[in-house]
Each structure stands twice: as structure tokens, then as C-alpha cells.
């Protein structure tokens, strides 16, 4: 099916609305993730966190946004100007693209219309996500390189090698899932978990995927690319104002998408035992999925504020010498399981 050929006006409108809604959602979640991050970090450290802007500090993201927009937008003198400007845009663009194939729910009945809650169900959805994840590194690399700052460059180089390394283990652990479900479509994978979540069959795969997702998002304990104590700010050392904001935002978007994907792959997506995703006119599905995602966002933050940062060689050792072999073992075990017990 050639995607382009299916375009019709109604289709385009439906999708456009969905896309805009998704963008809004994603950006909102990302924005509040920053708030959540501070708040959660505070709680872990027996603090209060932001509490002055609005009740419980709920308006803090807005304040941050205003601050970002009003700060001086600074372009370093010896930088590659256009790439410097392009990089954050590319980064956030790629991050936003990934939400297209995520099945947010079944069908939403709203105003007498049925809205399909997935922008597009391509039969290779999960590859699409992996592909975008692999593209994410360009924003970082270009940003780091274009800044003409050695710390930025270090950050960029670290980020790129780290992402390439961890993509492999991630792909391999996804393959185990694909073997179980027999499909690359995220929707199919989710629907197959209506009875039993994949994490039950794939505990090891889940841990691997989680680890890799942390690394792919440049989250602690794998935040080599921007670790303040070593590289000042890593690839975004030279960035300021909203360009910096884009970078930070995109990272949270990535985290959100990663968590959603984890939910879809291992935790049944919009399914929850005892809850029908079609309740509330189909709104239950998204609610379930978002709850799961938020939980994983919390887990991400929890991990960040618990574990110390890896050293760079440890990071590579972990990726190549532990995760990849484990992922292969996991894949083989899955294959054996399928062979002996059927699906």
C-alpha cells in the first residue's frame, strides 16, 4: 500500500486533527515532565521542589518557557551558523515524529465521529520508531559540532557512539518481541497483549530495553553527553534561550515516547486487566496508556536520582559486553520457547 495514494480530504482532516492533538499532548507532557523532574527530584532528596509559581508550582513550566523565549539568543562567533541553528530544530522534529505510529487507543467516539487514535498503522511501526531513534543523534551531533566548542564536541561524540552502541541491544530485544507477536505493527503487538503482558514472557528483554531506552534518551545514569561535572553542559554548552529550550524539550519528548513505547511493547499498551479500553467513548484507552507512560516517566526519574553516572568506558563495556550478548541470549531463549511451547 503506497501511503501517499490513500490521501483523501476527510482522511487528511482527521489525521491533521489527530496530529495536532498529539503534538499538543506531547508538548504538554514534555513541559510538565520538566516540572515533574524537579518535583520528583526534590521529593527524593526530601525537598519541596518548585512551589512558588502557581499552586504547588504548577505554572513553573510556563515561567520557564517565558524565560527561555526572553533570554538573549546567542550564536557563538566561530560557529557554523546555519547548522548551529538547524540542530535543535532537527532534534525536536525527530523527537516529535515518533508519536505517529503509537496506538494511543482504539477508537474515540467524539461528536458522533469515530476517531482512530493512531495516526498511521504502518506495518513496520516498530522499525519506524527505531529508525527515528537512530536519527535522533543528528541533532546532538550537529549541535555539538557546530558550536565550535571542545566540550560540545566531546558531548556530541559521546552521544553518537553511545546511541549507536545501544541501538543494537535495543533492536535485538525488540526482535524477541517481534518473534512473539509475529508482527512489526505496534497496534498488533498491543492487541496481542490483551490477555497477558509481554513483560511476563520477556522479563530480561524488558530490562534490556529499559536500559537501552535510558541510554538512547541520554538520561542518567547514561547522560555522558551532557554531564555537567565533566563537560559543563555537553553538546548544548553554547546554546541559550529557546534553542537550548528545544534541546531540553526534545529530551523530555524522547523520554515520553520511550516510556509510551515501553508500555506498548511490554505492558499491554492501552490494555489493563479489568478495564475495557473502549469505556468512556474510547477515552479509557489513552488514559490507561498515559498512566503507564507516566509511571515509566516516574521510573526514569527515579533511576536518574538514584544511580550514579557511569564512566564512559563502563558505558561501552556495559553496552557491548553485557547488553548485546544478553539480548542475543534473550532472542535465542525466545526462539527456543516458541519452538517448544508454540506462541
Amino acid at each position, binding site marked *: 500500500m503506497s501511503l501517499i495514494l490513500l490521501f483523501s480530504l476527510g482522511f487528511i482532516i482527521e489525521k491533521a486533527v489527530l496530529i495536532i492533538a498529539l503534538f499538543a499532548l506531547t508538548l504538554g507532557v514534555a513541559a510538565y515532565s520538566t516540572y515533574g523532574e524537579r518535583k*520528583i527530584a*526534590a*521529593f*527524593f*532528596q*526530601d*525537598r*519541596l521542589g518548585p*512551589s512558588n509559581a502557581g499552586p504547588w508550582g504548577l505554572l513553573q513550566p510556563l515561567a520557564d518557557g517565558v524565560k527561555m523565549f526572553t533570554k538573549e539568543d546567542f550564536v557563538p562567533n566561530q560557529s557554523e551558523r546555519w547548522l548551529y541553528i538547524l540542530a535543535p530544530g532537527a532534534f525536536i522534529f525527530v523527537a516529535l515524529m515518533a508519536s505517529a505510529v503509537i496506538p494511543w487507543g482504539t477508537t474515540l467516539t467524539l461528536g458522533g465521529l469515530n476517531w482512530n487514535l493512531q495516526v498511521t498503522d504502518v506495518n513496520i511501526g516498530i522499525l519506524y520508531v527505531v529508525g527515528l531513534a537512530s536519527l535522533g543523534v543528528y541533532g546532538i551531533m550537529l549541535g555539538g559540532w557546530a558550536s565550535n566548542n571542545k566540550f560540545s564536541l566531546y558531548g556530541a561524540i559521546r552521544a553518537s557512539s553511545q546511541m549507536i552502541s545501544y541501538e543494537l541491544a535495543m533492536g535485538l530485544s525488540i526482535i524477541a518481541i517481534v518473534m512473539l507477536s509475529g508482527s512489526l505493527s505496534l497496534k498488533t503487538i498491543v492487541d496481542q497483549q490483551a490477555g497477558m503482558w509481554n513483560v511476563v514472557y520477556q522479563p530480561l528483554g524488558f*530490562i534490556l530495553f529499559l536500559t537501552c531506552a535510558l541510554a538512547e534518551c541520554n538520561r542518567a545514569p547514561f547522560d555522558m553527553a551532557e554531564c555537567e561535572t565533566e563537560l559543563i553542559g555537553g553538546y548544548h554548552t553554547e546554546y541559550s534561550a529557546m534553542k537550548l529550550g528545544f534541546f531540553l524539550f526534545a529530551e523530555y519528548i524522547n523520554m515520553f515516547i520511550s516510556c509510551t513505547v515501553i508500555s506498548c511493547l511490554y505492558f499491554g499498551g492501552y490494555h489493563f486487566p479489568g478495564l475495557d479500553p473502549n469505556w468512556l467513548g474510547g477515552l479509557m484507552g489513552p488514559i490507561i496508556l498515559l498512566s503507564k507512560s507516566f509511571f515509566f516517566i516516574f521510573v526514569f526519574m*527515579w*533511576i536518574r*536520582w*538514584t*544511580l550514579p553516572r557511569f564512566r564512559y568506558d563502563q558505558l561501552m563495556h556495559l553496552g557491548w559486553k553485557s547488553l548485546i550478548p544478553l539480548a542475543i541470549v534473550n532472542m535465542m531463549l525466545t526462539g527456543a520457547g516458541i519452538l517448544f511451547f508454540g506462541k
Partner: protein
Amino acid sequence: MQLTQRSKNVVKKEMTFLERIYLPAIAKGMWTTLKHFFRKSNTVSYPKEQREFAPVYRGWHVLKRDEQGRENCTACGLCAVACPAEAITMEAAERERGEEHLYREEKYAAVYEINMLRCIFCGLCEEACPKEAIFLTDRIVPSDYARQYFVFGKDMLVEGVEPDKRVDVTVRQKHITEKNTQPA
């Protein structure tokens, strides 16, 4: 070499498999942080609320005046001598005629400075003072931007004449008296 009784011999022993996969340790760490997550926060939103001070809190110094509004200090210099941080400096001057309502005795401190960056708030100055002129109070030393603002002169130290500007040091005074009257 055993230096103290409390020193521990560190042995780098081979880690067991369970230790090497780190997951239990990570889980333990997560559990620890999670416990903190649900612990009550210790934060005091300072400008809005203030935490309680101990009765013997030693803060910003004050140079007392007597009931008639005369400075107690005679610039004898004992406080400066007692100060372990050498934070106190002063210049003495003789009281002129017509200044009796200002200074209690013939000699007074024309300049009296405490460097708040040096001061360690130990309270030895007040113990040394024979005239009950200097006390540490429960006021917090205000913050500022430059070092020079932390050398407090008499303008910052001497309490006001008006009754509402007087600083209450009774608790402190009692404590000092008790301390000084205790047999050595």
C-alpha cells in the same frame, strides 16, 4: 599499620555473581531513594515561615545601651582580645562635655567594627565584656553582595534609642550571668 582503633581493613574480594550483575544493588538503591520519596520534606520556606531558634542562639551582635539610651561600651578592648577570630576592631575616644547622654562612661568606642565574615559566633566577646555591652542575638546576619558590606560598624551594631528599636537580650543576659557566675 593500625593507626586508630576504628580503622577498618579493606579487602578487595572477588564479587559474587549476584553482586556482579548489580541488579540487587540497584534495587536496594532504588528502595532507599523510594523511602526518601515518601519521607516528609525538611524544607522551611524561609521568607514565608521561619524556623524556631534555640534560646541560646548566637546571631548578629548588638551593642547595648542602658535605660537612658547611653552606650554601655567603654572601648576597653577585652572583647577584641577574647575574639579567637580576630574579628573585632575598635578605636577608643574620650567623652567630650555635653556627650554624657550618649556614653555611659568617660571613654567610648568611636569606631567599633566586627567583620562578619571572620566572626565565628562563638560568644566569647559577650563573656569577656565587663560592661554587659555586647551580646549575640537571635537575629540572622543579612546577606549581601560584596565583602565590604560585611564589616559591620556601629551603625549596624548599636541598638536604637527608641524603645521599639531596643533589642531584647534578657534570655541571653541571664545565660551569660549564669555562665560567668558558675564556679570555675
